[in-house]
């Protein structure tokens, strides 16, 4: 990273250490060591004494192995996990690995984003191949040196051995020779057998954990540049509103204020309701000062009259009334239909009808959105906790008219992401303000900015009807899903897939939808769509189980066994549609495991307590959970214990982190279900900070027991499906 050394303990940072040791060892090494930092290329030295077989690995003659972590780290553990895959196949000990965060670089890296629990399935093989390629090249270098066949050489813990002659060379001693070995064909490389894994499947601590617990600068908010100014940005409380006028002169007279100006994006980003992720960005008043406190203090003197626009008419109460009305009318569209749900509902002996609702919620990353930007000589440099730098760069390039190649993005550790940092509105604002201010600027949002200007998890309404036959089998399921959008198009993250469960498992199935307009930005929150749909679906399955007089676990197992013969199942279904490739055998596996671990049906419970069971398939992961919960006399629900069983394939790459992710996901779900709601009045978000938008607290966090069922499938992601 090109940020300045910030080690406040007085020890040498790695960069300084190399500088010193380089001087001690001669100028040539100095330049080659520092090449990745781009700092001293002017010396003109040729990089002969370093082995960089690919963009992920750097080995220097002193045997130091640096592995580049390409993806944004937001707390999901990817900065540790991807290097683990490389180190495994490179055959080095984890304790000898240094990890370095890559900047955004589309010329070197593939899929450099944090979203959709995609890192594991995308990189499971490519990262391992990157490590294996380097290992093959090091073996080749050693074999050539010794004049022996490569097949007689092997590696262990960063050393190439020729057992027959007892010779051995550490990787550091081979870097010069290895640098001239042609790279092997990645596709034909032999990878380790899982039985030989020494790193994958072991508990590895986060590479930044030490820096975190000692308070080292790591996050976007921690960046400081020479001559940097600080900015705050006032947006219209009504989404899509614009500045009519503002008392800029008074604001400019406040202590420390350097600039105060209106940003009017005009039409450059297009219609905010047109489906673009960031169309709501910009439009507001920027205040730039010598310190952030001064900028924020000056903002209290700011008076803006807004052109609020049509968004001011919308409200949560209005949405609820519209949804109720839509539910009584014929659905606007049918997403999927099997058999004849209407007839089956009319003729079945037992029918259940229910409506489920979930509200808007905010991401509320604990690190408020921020970005530091520097615009110099036509080039823009950004430091940001971003989940999707590619989108941010494109948006900024388009808006500010800067070529994409002239924009550098340093990916900082994100203080939480949950989907919020897929959006680049805060980066665009920082870039615009820094360009206008003619100085490096750190833009930092307040918590109120963050809660009131999010891309919200859309509210949703499910009007459900289901029927069971005399034997207690589910024979009909109809869902009229009421959501937001226009015509046949759903607002972002406000859709359902046509094959959402229990499609394919009920003979008479209808998934229908109606939408109403929304002038509010919506977005993806951890397990998007699933985090609402799973609640409605699994709750209604429970109601049907009770109607059928069946145990909720048994009812679910029966349902999973009821794959309709003419519908594809398991791996044969076309991929891509939500729910289309749900494999009932894998789901049955986790249901049975969680039932066993929780003592389902055999645990004695105190009065007022009960157990519930549910499952869900998303992001290629299979999860089943049992909750033990209590209802007080006053009707307050608290959760006392959760058991989880998950199947994300053949390997749990880092069990230490996987458990943490699953526990966090489950507790996140409890917070969403029991405490969180964003409400809209007169087009404005009512909530503003953590006193009225509630995060889960320590005293509300029950024990969460996590179990994994390993199956023969390639491993998939763990950040969302639980």
């Amino acid at each position, binding site marked *: 990273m090109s940020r300045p050394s910030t080690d406040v303990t007085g020890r040498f940072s790695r960069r300084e250490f190399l500088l010193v040791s380089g001087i001690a060892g001669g100028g040539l090494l100095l330049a080659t060591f520092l090449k990745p930092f781009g700092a001293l290329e002017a010396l003109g030295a040729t990089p002969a004494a370093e082995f960089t077989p690919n963009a992920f690995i750097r080995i220097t003659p002193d045997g130091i192995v640096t592995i580049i972590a390409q993806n944004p780290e937001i707390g999901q553990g990817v900065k540790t996990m991807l290097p683990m895959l490389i180190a495994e196949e490179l055959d080095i000990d*984890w*304790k000898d690995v240094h990890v370095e965060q890559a900047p955004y670089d589309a010329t070197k890296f593939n899929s450099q984003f944090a979203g959709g629990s995609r890192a594991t399935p995308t990189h499971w093989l490519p990262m391992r191949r990157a490590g294996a390629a380097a290992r093959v090249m090091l073996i080749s270098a050693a074999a050539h040196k010794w004049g022996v066949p490569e097949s007689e050489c092997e590696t262990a813990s960063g050393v190439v051995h020729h057992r027959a002659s007892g010779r051995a060379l550490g990787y550091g001693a081979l870097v010069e020779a290895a640098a001239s070995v042609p790279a092997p064909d990645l596709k034909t490389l032999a990878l380790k057998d899982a039985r030989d894994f020494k790193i994958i499947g072991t508990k590895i601590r986060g590479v930044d954990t030490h820096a975190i*617990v000692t308070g080292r600068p790591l996050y976007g908010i921690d960046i400081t540049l020479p001559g940097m100014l600080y900015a705050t940005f006032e947006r219209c409380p009504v989404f899509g509103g614009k500045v009519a006028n503002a008392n800029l002169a008074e604001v400019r007279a406040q202590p420390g204020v350097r600039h105060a100006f209106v940003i009017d994006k005009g039409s450059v980003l297009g219609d905010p309701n047109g489906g673009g992720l960031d169309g709501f960005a910009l439009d507001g008043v920027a205040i730039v000062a010598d310190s952030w406190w001064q900028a924020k203090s000056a903002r209290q003197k700011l008076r803006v009259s807004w052109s609020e626009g049509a968004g001011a008419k919308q409200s949560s109460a209005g949405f609820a009334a519209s949804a109720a009305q839509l539910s009584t009318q014929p659905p606007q569209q049918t997403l999927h239909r099997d058999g004849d749900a209407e007839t089956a509902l009319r003729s079945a002996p037992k029918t259940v009808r229910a409506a489920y609702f979930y509200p808007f919620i905010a991401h509320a*990353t604990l690190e408020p959105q921020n970005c530091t930007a520097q615009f110099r000589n036509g080039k823009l440099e950004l430091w940001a906790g971003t989940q999707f730098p590619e989108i941010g760069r494109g948006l900024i390039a388009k808006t500010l008219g800067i070529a994409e190649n002239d924009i550098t993005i340093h990916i900082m550790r994100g203080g939480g992401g949950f989907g919020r940092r897929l959006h680049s509105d805060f980066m665009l604002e920082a870039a615009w303000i820094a360009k206008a201010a003619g100085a490096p600027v750190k833009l930092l949002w307040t918590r109120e900015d963050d809660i009131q200007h999010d891309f919200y998890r859309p509210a949703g309404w499910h009007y459900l009807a289901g029927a069971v036959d005399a034997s207690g089998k589910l024979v009909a399921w109809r869902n009229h899903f009421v959501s937001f959008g226009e015509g046949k198009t759903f607002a972002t993250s406000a859709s359902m897939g046509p094959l959402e469960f229990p499609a394919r498992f009920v003979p008479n199935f209808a998934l229908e939808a109606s939408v109403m307009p929304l002038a509010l930005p919506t977005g993806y929150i951890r397990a998007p769509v699933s985090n609402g749909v799973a609640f409605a679906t699994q709750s209604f399955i429970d109601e049907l189980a009770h109607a059928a007089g069946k145990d909720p676990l048994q009812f679910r197992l029966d349902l999973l066994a009821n794959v309709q013969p003419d519908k594809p199942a398991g791996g044969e279904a076309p991929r891509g549609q939500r729910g289309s490739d749900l494999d009932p055998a894998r789901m049955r596996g986790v249901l049975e495991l969680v039932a066993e671990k929780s003592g389902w049906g055999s645990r004695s419970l105190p009065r007022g307590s009960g157990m519930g069971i549910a499952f869900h398939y998303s992001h290629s992961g299979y999860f089943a959970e049992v909750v033990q919960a209590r209802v007080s006399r006053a009707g307050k629900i608290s959760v006392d214990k959760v058991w989880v069983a998950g199947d994300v394939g053949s390997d749990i790459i880092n069990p230490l982190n996987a458990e943490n992710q699953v526990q966090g996901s489950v507790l996140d779900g409890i917070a969403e279900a029991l405490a969180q709601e964003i409400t809209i009045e007169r087009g404005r978000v009512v909530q503003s900070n953590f006193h009225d938008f509630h995060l889960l607290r320590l005293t509300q966090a029950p024990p969460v027991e996590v179990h994994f069922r390993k199956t023969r499938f390639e491993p998939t992601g763990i950040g969302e499906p639980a």
Partner: protein
Amino acid sequence: MTVTFKVNGKPATVDVPPDMPLLWVLRDVLDLKGTKFGCGAAQCGACTVQVRGVPTRSCVLPVSAVQGSEITTIEGLSSDGSHPLQRAWEELDVPQCGYCQAGQLMSAAALLAKKAQPSDADIDAAMDGNLCRCATYIRIRQAIHRAAAMKTNAADTSRFYDSGRSAP
């Protein structure tokens, strides 16, 4: 206004507006970035430091109020991560995103200083105001118990070092 106080044992004198919260003095004037901004309203605990040993939300504490005080931040909990809580946090790998953890540690350190062997109820009372958006609460509780055990068991106090580290 000139305010003089001690941070992590070292004297500091700053000339800033008197209403500037201690948080911003620490972060933007003294360049101690370990203390975090989360809410600006004493609602989340990310900014927790100790003022004369008492866990305090620095985001709402005007710097004028700490004249002559002794402040401890995460950087001063230990110089090298050797405080039992830091070691326990590493051992159990508590953090996910990590942003709240400095505040969590400062609250927990004040608890352990007051009560060497805290019960779960003590932990509930001391830690309920520190929010973790990633919900690492289960490990936070375990790590406080672990650190308390380390303090009384000399055999456990060896430095924990066996994983890869990010290059600074």
